[in-house]
Each structure stands twice: as C-alpha cells, then as structure tokens.
C-alpha cells in the first residue's frame, strides 16, 4: 500500500522570517495522496493552504523555509533537492494552476509562445514543430479553439484564460497538479465549466490532484478527500463523505454550517465568531480554542493529537472521541 503513494507529506513545518519574528505558516502537516487521487485543502485565508502547495513545488519565497519534515514524491524525498534538480522535477512531475489566472499570463506574449516556453524549458531537445503540435493538442484538450493559439491574453475572456492556465499546467504531462483557487473570481457558469473540465481531464489523464480553495463545494465536486486547515495545522482529514456528513472537529462543523444551501431551511448561515489568530503568536494549546464553542480546559494548554475514525479519517480535537492514534 505504502509505495503506491504518489505524494507523502510528513510533519511538514514551513516558517517565514519577518520583521516581527517567525511566522509559523504551516506546522506539523501530514497527508498522503494515492495515485490518481485528488485531495482538497480548505480553510480561511491565511491558514497556510497556499504555503503548503508552494513547499511541495519548491517555490517558497526568499524568506520562507522548510524547518522540519519531509515530502516524498513517488517514494523519493524531494525536500533537499538543489535548484537544478528542482527544475527537472517541477512541471515535468508536478505542476500548478496559479491563483488569479487573469493576471498570471504575460500580456505582451502570444499564448502559443507562453505555453511553448513551458514545454521548451523542461524539454530542451524538443523541436519547434513538436512544440506547436503539442500546444494545439493542449488547446484541444482544454476545449479551446485551436485557431486562437496566436492570440494575446487580452483577447481571451476570464474563463478562457483559466483554460490556458490549465493547458500550461498540463504541458509536460505531470503526474500531479496543484490547483490554487482554480475557479475563484469566475462567474458561476464558467466555474461549473472549469469544474467539468478538471473532472474530465482527471478521468482521461489519471493525474493526482491537490485543490486549494476556501469553497468546500468545489472540493465536493472534484475531490475524493478533504484536509481542513486552520492556522497552519490540518485539523481534520478524511474522505469527502466523511467530512461533510460525519465531521468531527468543531471547526469543520462551523465551516460546513457557514455554507448556505438553497435546498435546506431558509436560515442565515452561521458565522464563526472571532478572527483567525495572529500567525506570529498563535494561541497555546489547540489553535482553535479561542473561537471554539466546545472548548474545555485542556484545549488551552495541550495541542490535541490526531484521533482516527476509520477509513483514513482523522481529527485533532480533545473533545471528540475516537480511537487514539499511535504515532
């Protein structure tokens, strides 16, 4: 079983050096991704979702560093690679659909050249004709009109630019794609189109996928598993069914109840009182305890360990009962 994990993140800590001290953006994050599986990471802004993804891509900004932990890709530890090794592995093995597709394309470069650049940089021996053929192939794959390969980004609509970003991520046939808020800032109908496209590609190409979003409904459409993050920790992880219907952690509960549904009763979605903690000085004990409606004394001092609820469903909370997990 173990060796079929395409990605395994173990005790990952990512810190940032800033003026006021050290920001513990991601702390003690563990998760695994099986071949062809997709996992969603959900949480409020600033909870460390994107930082986790950047660490996996080896693209942390200058003041960020991996303090502890290991990341295995296909069984190989990738955290200590040097930049040259990273370059060979990035995009060829793991690629990313960046947040804000509208702004991540170069406005003065034709789309064909932008996608072609990604292909050429990672396959230095490829010929021009092969690149063009590949771009056309990618355009077809993401449902864009191949006549438009020589257009500039401003001639594309938001949804089409998002498709271009997806094509770019697929350029080198990666085994794993990370989508950072792939549908945010798109209209509802375009969002649905992109979700359909991603699901379709996943079936066709059998890729692993990590979707980072604050919108649980997108994850429920695309992913098999969900990790709920709060202030740098994964507080609960499990299959989408387990998380939505059988959630254990009070934060997950709040997150799900904050979701308006037109099929239920007409009640105002509940908001979570308070704000996420300051990452420079997170609270002692369970990081969620100041906002938690179920918190007890022990939550204030002791960081909860994960308890298992079967079927790879874990939650870190003192209040919920499950089988304790020996780490």
């Amino acid at each position, binding site marked *: 079983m173990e060796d079929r994990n395409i990605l395994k993140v173990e005790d990952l800590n990512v810190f940032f050096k800033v003026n006021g001290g050290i920001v513990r953006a991601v702390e003690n994050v563990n998760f695994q991704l099986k071949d062809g599986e997709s996992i969603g990471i959900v949480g409020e802004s600033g909870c460390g979702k994107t930082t986790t993804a950047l660490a996996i891509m080896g693209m942390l900004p200058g003041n960020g560093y991996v303090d502890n932990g290991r990341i295995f890709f296909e069984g190989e530890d990738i955290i200590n690679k040097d930049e040259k090794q990273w370059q060979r592995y990035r995009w060829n093995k793991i690629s990313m659909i960046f947040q804000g597709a509208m702004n991540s394309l170069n406005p003065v470069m034709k789309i064909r050249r932008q996608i072609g650049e990604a292909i050429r940089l990672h396959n230095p021996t490829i010929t021009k004709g092969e690149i063009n053929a590949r771009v056309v192939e990618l355009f077809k794959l993401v449902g864009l009109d191949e006549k438009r390969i020589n257009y500039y980004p401003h001639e594309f609509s938001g949804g089409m630019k998002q498709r271009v970003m997806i094509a770019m991520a697929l350029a080198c046939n990666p085994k794993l794609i990370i989508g950072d808020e792939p549908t945010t800032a798109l209209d509802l109908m375009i969002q649905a189109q992109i979700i359909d496209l991603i699901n379709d590609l996943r079936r066709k190409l059998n890729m692993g996928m990590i979707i980072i979003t604050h919108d649980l409904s997108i994850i429920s459409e695309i992913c098999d598993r969900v990790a709920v993050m709060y202030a740098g920790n994964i507080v609960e992880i499990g299959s989408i069914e387990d998380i939505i219907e059988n959630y254990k952690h009070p934060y997950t509960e709040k997150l799900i109840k904050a*979701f308006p549904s037109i099929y239920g009763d007409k009640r105002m979605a509940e908001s979570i009182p308070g704000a996420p903690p300051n990452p420079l000085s997170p609270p002692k004990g369970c990081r969620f305890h100041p906002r938690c409606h179920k918190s007890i004394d022990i939550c204030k001092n002791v960081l909860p360990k994960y308890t298992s609820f079967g079927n790879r469903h874990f939650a870190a909370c003192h209040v919920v009962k499950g089988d304790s997990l020996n780490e």
Partner: protein
Amino acid sequence: MNNDKVIEVNKLSVYFNARAGFFKDLIRKDKIMVRAVDGVDLSISKGEIVSLVGESGSGKTTMGRAILNLVHHNTGSLKFNDEAYDIKNKKWMKTFRKKAQMIFQDPYQSLNPKFMIADIVSEPLKFIEKKLSEEEIESKVVEALEFAGLKPARDYLYRYPYELSGGQRQRVAIASVFIISPQFIVADEPVSMLDASVRADIVKLMLQMKEEKGTSYLFITHDLALAWLVSDRIAIMYLGKIVEIGPAEIISGNCIHPYTQALISVLSNIDIKKKRKRIVLKGETPSPMNIPKGCRFHTRCPIAKEKCEKEEPPLIKRQKNHFAACHFSKRLI
C-alpha cells in the same frame, strides 16, 4: 396599492457609447452602443428586499446606479414614492439623496483613506442637517457605529480606514448610510469582497436595518444562494434584461426560465446526497454590443427552438408575482 411602492422603474434603458478609436469614431455615422440595461421594469415596495442576480456584465450594477441616478438613463421613467424623478431640480435631488443611498462593493476603495472614521460616518449627516451641534453629531455617530457592531464605538472614532479589517470597513460604510436612515438602499455586492465568516454578520446587519427602519433594498449580487437567503423577491438578469422575477421560494424551487434553472443547477452545494443534474451552459455570455436577435438567451439555451431566434419573449405572468420571459416553460431539473 400604488402608494407602498418605494421605487418604480418603467422601461429603463442605459446605453453607453462604445469607442472604437478616435478616428473611427469621427468617421462612423452609426454609433455602436453597449446596451447595458435594455428596457427593464421593476418595482420595490416598502420594507421589501429585491435581489438582482446575474453574471458579470449582465447590467445589474448599471441598473442599480441608474435607479439612484448615478448614471444617466437613456429611456424609461423612474418614480420614487410615487413621484417621478425630477433630476434637474436640485432641491428634489437633495431630498432624494437623503432617502436613497448606496452601499458599495469594495470597502477598501469606498472609504476615504484620509478621513477618520468619525468624519466618514458623520459626513452625510453634516451635509443634510447643517444645524446640528458637534455633540449631537458625535452622539449620532456613536449610535450608528454601535448599531453597525463596532463596539465600543468611541474606540473607533479617531482611527483611519487602514487600521480596520475588511469586515470592519464595511461596517463603517453601513454606519455612514444608517446615520441618515434612508428609505431605500442599493447594496451593490456588499459582501462579495469579505471572508465567508464575516459575510453573515454584514447581511444580518442589513436585515436588522430593514426590521428597525423599514428600509427597502435593491440587493445586487451574483450569489444566488445569498439572494435566496435575504430577499423577498429575486430578479434574474441576463444581458441587460430581467428574464425572470418572482418570490425567492419560487425562483429557487420552481423557476421556469432555462437560464435560471441552469444557474440554480450549478449552484455550489455541499450536500452530496442531493446532487442534482447540472446544466452547464456552453460558451459565454455574448457581448452587450451585439445582443442576439430574438430571445437574447437563445444562443446558449438548451431548449431553444426556431421561434426563439426570431421573437423576443415578453415577461409573462406565470403565477402571482412570478414572471418569466420564455416562449416555453419546461422544467429541466
């Protein structure tokens, strides 16, 4: 009956000139028009919340702005409290501005960064009631801030917008509207820039204002679920026209127009047991410079027939208060 209508809009159209370039504009005789709002009827009663829902570019913001006379409308008649708009009359406009206000989308841009909170909130009041003393103004500002949930209000008076979070800023914006107790408010995506966790609070605040003061709202949003939660009636807009309007329950459960049905079907939904059939429309909304003939939705409609390409369907009454503009009325979901 007529008397309880706060806003009545008849055949409202707003066109913008599309510029093709300086010389082309000089040479060309027929101006290309962007028909942002194209003949819309709408009325809002006292204490009613009507949501205007549509994708970006559907003309919903322009509609809201035209109702407040923030953009010039080309055709149509507007009535406020059964009184036709008298735009050229400055006195009339001033009383109108007292009673009709707007909450903007982006609290990071709508507050003057050089003003302190006390100034931002008191400015509309000072403009309207010039005889108030400093003490009276301050007590009103404090009252408004406390209503908006910024407690203790005195801590906020002398701070600047940059010191506040997005949710707090939007509260300040609401306080500055609340302070003059308008009768009618256009809220243009008031929560779309905010985190999900503070959204509900801001919406509750607006509902509370309705309860306490009987304020009517035109609530502009792209979020159908939110519209369903807050409003009495929902109007669905597509390319400058209202294609369906009716009570929130009918729109969510019994809508007729295929566009509404498609929007409902792709609505974010985390209830895995109740996954419905999704109708994902192909392509994108056509340009408002070049609106399709006939039914403007026919290019993307899953049930379009020949008739739809030729005749534009009128907004026809289906049930009490429920109108839809479609030649057919077929349930798709």
